[in-house]
């Protein structure tokens, strides 16, 4: 009666996933309590410029003799702020937008989706660039810019999901039971739309972190001396020939964080999908 269940290859619990969670936790701690991990990120030491890793400076020092470890640690905050902040905002805005488009009547829905079409008509970074152009650079504005770039995508997905849920058999069943629309919206539609969205959002944190770093690499994000991985890389470019640690550590921090966030998101997704029949 059913198609032969060609079972998927058996997946082991991967230690990599644990490492990802651990690293994420570490990054979060660094963002919250940087002082636990390193000294001041802006302490200039003209006598120890561009040192390689060594005692006192495990990651070496930068062009002003600042401790790279400290800057990487303190940089976590900006990156997470941009990554998490824009994802959360975009998730919230996108959900409201998508739900409105799906359930808010024809005219509203059309208008909402066409606006999304416009914003999705060109790459996200370009949208973000434009927004930064209007608002000016900085951490907060970069976050807003990425939010605006991400939100229409979320809106579209939420809308599709909301339509699926709206037409699903279980919402039909709930209507049949005579439940009130508001209750159906609250108890069935919103939770079933948001659950997959949350996972999608987790997967998007990495994208947002990269986008944030790209913006500051282009000089449109947080400004030095505030430590930020993207702008550290931008400066490191001038010293490629002289000091490898300068480019290595912030870059590795981005990659590892994004990798961990994505791995965690995928693990959540896999769990969610497995829970589904």
């Amino acid at each position, binding site marked *: *009666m*059913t*198609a*032969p269940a*060609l*079972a998927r*290859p*058996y*997946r082991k619990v991967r230690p990599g996933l644990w490492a990802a969670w651990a690293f994420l936790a570490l990054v979060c701690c660094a963002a919250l309590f940087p002082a636990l991990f390193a000294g001041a990120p802006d302490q200039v030491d003209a006598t120890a410029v561009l040192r390689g890793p060594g005692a006192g400076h495990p990651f070496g020092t930068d062009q002003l003799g600042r401790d790279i470890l400290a800057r990487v640690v303190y940089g976590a905050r900006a990156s997470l702020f941009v990554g998490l902040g824009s994802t959360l905002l975009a998730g919230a805005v996108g959900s409201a937008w998508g739900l409105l488009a799906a359930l808010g009547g024809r005219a509203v829905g059309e208008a909402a989706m066409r606006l999304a079409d416009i914003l999705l008509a060109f790459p996200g970074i370009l949208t973000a660039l434009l927004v930064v152009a209007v608002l000016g650079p900085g951490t907060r504005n970069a976050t807003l810019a990425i939010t605006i770039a991400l939100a229409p995508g979320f809106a579209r997905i939420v809308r599709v999901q909301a339509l699926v849920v709206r037409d*699903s*058999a*279980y919402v*039909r*069943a*709930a*209507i*049949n*039971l*005579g*439940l*009130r629309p508001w209750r159906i919206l609250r*108890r*069935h539609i919103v*939770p*079933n739309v948001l*659950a997959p969205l949350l996972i999608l959002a987790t997967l998007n944190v990495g994208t947002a972190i990269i986008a944030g770093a790209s913006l500051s690499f282009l000089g449109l994000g947080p400004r030095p001396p505030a430590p930020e991985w993207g702008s550290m890389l931008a400066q490191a470019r001038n010293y490629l020939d002289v000091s490898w640690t300068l480019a290595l550590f912030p870059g590795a921090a981005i990659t590892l964080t994004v990798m961990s966030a994505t791995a965690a998101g995928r693990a959540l997704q896999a769990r969610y999908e497995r*829970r*589904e*029949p």
Partner: protein
Amino acid sequence: MTEPLVVVDGLSVDFTTRHGPVRAVRDVSLTLRAGECLAVVGESGSGKSVTARTLLGLAGQGADVRARTLSFAGHDLRRLGARQWRRLRGRQVGYVLQDALTSLDPLRRIGYEVAEPLEVHGLATRDDLDDQVVGLLAEVGIPDPEVRLLQYPHELSGGLRQRALIASAIAARPRLLIADEPTTALDVTVQAQVLDVLAARRDAGTALLLISHDLAVVARLADHVAILYAGTVVEQGPAAELLAAPAHPYTADLLAAVPSVEGPVPDLSGLRSAPAAQEGCPYAPRCPLADDRCRERLPEALPYDTGRLVRCWYPGGAPASVPGERSAVPVVPARAEPVLTVRGLTKRFRSPDGSHRTAVDDVSFDLAAGEALGIVGESGSGKSTTARIVLAEFEPDAGSVLLHGEPWSGLRERDRRARRSRIQLVDQDPLSSFDPRYTVEEVVAEALPRTRDRGERVAELLGQVGLDPAILRRRPGQLSGGQRQRVAIARALAPGPDVLVCDEPVSALDVTVQAQILTLLTRLRRDAGVSLLFISHDLGVIRQVCDRVAVMKDGKVVETGQVETVFRAPQATYTRALLAAVPRIGPGPRVPARPRVPEPVPVTDLKGPT
């Protein structure tokens, strides 16, 4: 007798999975000769498909195949290399996968799919390929083969798709044809045609391995039958004898559970369901005869009667299920007020091409309190649409629905809401009608008013539908099909409805489970006094539950009347054709291939099976 083409002896197949090993097939032995048909019958998950796929070397990933003998035309299949297997597949053994909907590549034209075995085995030149494919399509009774060749699977009806799949399987003229559930999900008339095509192959000398969960289907074609239960062949032997006098209790139950359109309606309240045992006889938990010996040790396959083998300590000991006359079905007092009055319902839908098609056309009927009205009809005849209008999921284009004599259709949803609880639905696919985040308890509780004793009510309802309260905390995804349907029924009963609309409630279930659900519905009707609007494409099922029946075709009701009257003396030609096509498990010789019947499937019918 000729040399056997296929010899399987002591075949076991285990799978390694995340949840540990699965013993899909245990110690199965079969033989099959050219020109013969061996039917393998069993419920879902009994290992039918795995057995069949083993003969193609396609048991699946992580399969551990062991056998004392596994030979095809004298070749030891256990020693074949990948290349030799490929030469066997399609060329020597044709395989018709179950579910034609997904077994044809949806992105390729039918012609390509049919031609693939020819191409792979170099049996056709580029020039005559098309001719051969056209010939094959014609051979399996597909009209306009030149047109069909260029169509895609989704453009074909279920019956045509199934036949195309058969055409592909027989393209290279294999000596063995394996048909895995070739008629499941097809309407009875289409089903009959497909069986005819297979019969023709068998008569042409091809060995046929027919897999089914439906004994009635098997009865038409099989020379031999093997009954599979939990991976074990519990009984096998010549079809006629085996079906006439089942020796294994499982076979007996299986036979009894098949709803039939004639003869007495059996009382199935004694059927039990329980998971197969891992130790001893797998059927022991469900067997009325089981004792400690059964629970401890699985017997060897013992000869029984002439040429039969049975794996039972008490072969032939099963009590032939007592045919209780229709006493279970309450008879409705004639003067009962109609609960539901349906008058002149009409509903049109827009097709993607912009044209309109009438799904329901001037349908009228009454449903009295406590009555069960069945609606039958082939796929696409408008049964579900009617049900959904009755449920006020959408408005009819014309006509009206009255509930207790008061308007029900044509209202604002707000005005209807308070009376929503009067009509409830039980669907074919209960799983999708449960919020995936809800537990069984929450699903049922949602249907109840928010009172203090809600928890007790939930437990009570579950007891009423025969469910263990232990499943309260589970999610529907973790339940079996039968359990899910019981939860759905419990939820439908929760608000204390007057009418229960059942849209194909059992068509996705194994016969024994189906029988249990049908018994349950009958009992509920008696106990709770609800009326049933019961939709099914299976005439036997209708007969088991309903008092009256309405036969639908192309959106119209072509005939209504008391079930017994209609089935004994059908008036409409369509009803007669429908009844004639129903496969029967009768005594007597196997049916020879019938002359091909004219194609009833209109070319424009693009709808697949539900």
